[in-house]
């Protein structure tokens, strides 16, 4: 009250306005934005929001901002933006419409502002009604000793015969999850056997067991031996067909023997 500035301002206002202004200034931090402030200001008009004078409200707001400035109260930017917009609205409402302007009319803008204020007020009232309802834990209560649903979980383990066999196979082979690749290591192809035989045939002047033509070392590993024997036998048949070698076998399960075919030798075996 000792503030000379305040005295000056108060001087130009009616008592009623001054009281309202003081209330506003005290509350400036309490406003929840410009729309809230406008809603508060509109209350001083003491009319239904439907019939409110937006022009008057705009003036009130601008006056408020003016006062706040004089009191060096820092207003947030959105209050100033609203002030600028309301000044614009005020001019639209006061001046005759400019026929070249196809923007919204002052009345349309004013109606929208009135709608916004009504809506905000409606939400305020609804919020109050909502909070005034009976609330759980305050007015009504839930069960104090809830009985939790007991979950009895029965776990049955299952496995199929296939699972069992696969498991056994896995254990027995010990190389589970190995990407499938053809094992060529222990396999002698007919081409390989043919290659080897072709190279050896010129030297095979005497009958000799087919097994002696197996690649070196392959006769030791049973698996390799089997493969090499089969391939070499197949290769020998191929060479015989080509007329390069002769094949003989003493009897069933007797060793198979081969030798190079001598051109000049009479065809005893073939005959």
């Amino acid at each position, binding site marked *: 009250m000792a503030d000379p500035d305040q005295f000056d301002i108060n001087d130009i206002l009616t008592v009623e306005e001054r009281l309202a202004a003081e209330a506003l200034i005290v509350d400036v931090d309490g406003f929840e934005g410009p729309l809230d402030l406008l809603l508060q200001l509109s209350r001083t008009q003491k009319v239904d929001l439907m019939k409110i004078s937006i022009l008057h409200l705009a003036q009130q707001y601008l006056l408020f901002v003016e006062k706040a400035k004089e009191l060096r109260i820092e207003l947030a930017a959105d209050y100033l933006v609203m002030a600028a917009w309301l000044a614009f609205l005020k001019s639209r409402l006061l001046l005759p419409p400019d026929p070249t302007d196809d923007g919204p009319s002052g009345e349309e803008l004013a109606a929208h502002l009135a709608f916004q204020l*009504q809506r905000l007020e409606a939400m305020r009232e609804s919020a109050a009604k909502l909070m005034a309802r009976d609330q*759980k834990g305050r007015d009504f209560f839930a069960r104090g000793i809830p009985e939790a649903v007991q979950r009895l979980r029965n776990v049955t383990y299952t496995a199929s015969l296939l699972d069992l066999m696969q498991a056994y196979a896995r254990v027995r082979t010990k190389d589970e999850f190995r990407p499938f690749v053809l094992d060529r290591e222990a396999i002698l192809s007919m081409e390989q056997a043919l290659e080897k035989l072709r190279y050896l045939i010129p030297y095979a002047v005497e009958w000799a067991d087919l097994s002696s033509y197996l690649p070196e070392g392959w006769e030791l590993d049973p698996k390799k031996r089997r493969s090499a024997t089969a391939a070499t036998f197949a290769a020998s048949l191929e060479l015989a067909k080509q007329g390069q070698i002769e094949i003989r076998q003493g009897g069933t399960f007797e060793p198979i023997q081969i030798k190079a075919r001598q051109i000049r030798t009479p065809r005893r075996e073939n005959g």
Partner: protein
Amino acid sequence: MAEEDCQEESLFAAPPLAEQERMVEAVLFASADPVTIADLAGRMPHGCDPKAAVELLQKRYEGRGVRVVRVGEAWAIRTAPDLGFLMQKETTETRKLSRAAIETLAIIAYHQPCTRAEIEEIRGVSVSRGTLDQLIELEWIRFGRRRMSPGRPVTYVVTSTFLDHFGLETARDLPGVKELRAAGLLESRPMPGLDEERDEDEHQDDLFEDEA
């Protein structure tokens, strides 16, 4: 043959409705949270009609110290609100919500599904993240579907916990919702001259989207 038929029937027939009512009574009494009809059906013997049994039970408890209330798609037993004074011991002190939080909650409840921008437009002020977080933490609001508008903003809707807390059967039962709708105050109206792409229709359709 006839005997066998009879046996089979008694084996598979649902219990009498009065018995079903007892079952619903036991289940609802045992739970602090609302129980859905589907949950009831899952717990009761095959062939029961929990909805009919609940409605019977609700009638039975009319005017009693506890009531059978509907909460969204679920049902619960709650003490009669006029007896709240007896329950000082049970009263839970809820943190006082800020004015911003209360208003934000009301706006979401009445306008759901509602984007943050819409809440801000109605309040004319920005909504702090903390306010929404607080409401989410209370389990009174949750995220709804994203809006099919540019930026696909998230929407907020109220939960069944909210309905339970405020003793509402559905969001349709919010105080004054009909009047507000009739007065056009739940519409989203763009500022004149602003060519806002507002899918108002979709928004209205969604308003009382049934809760999951």
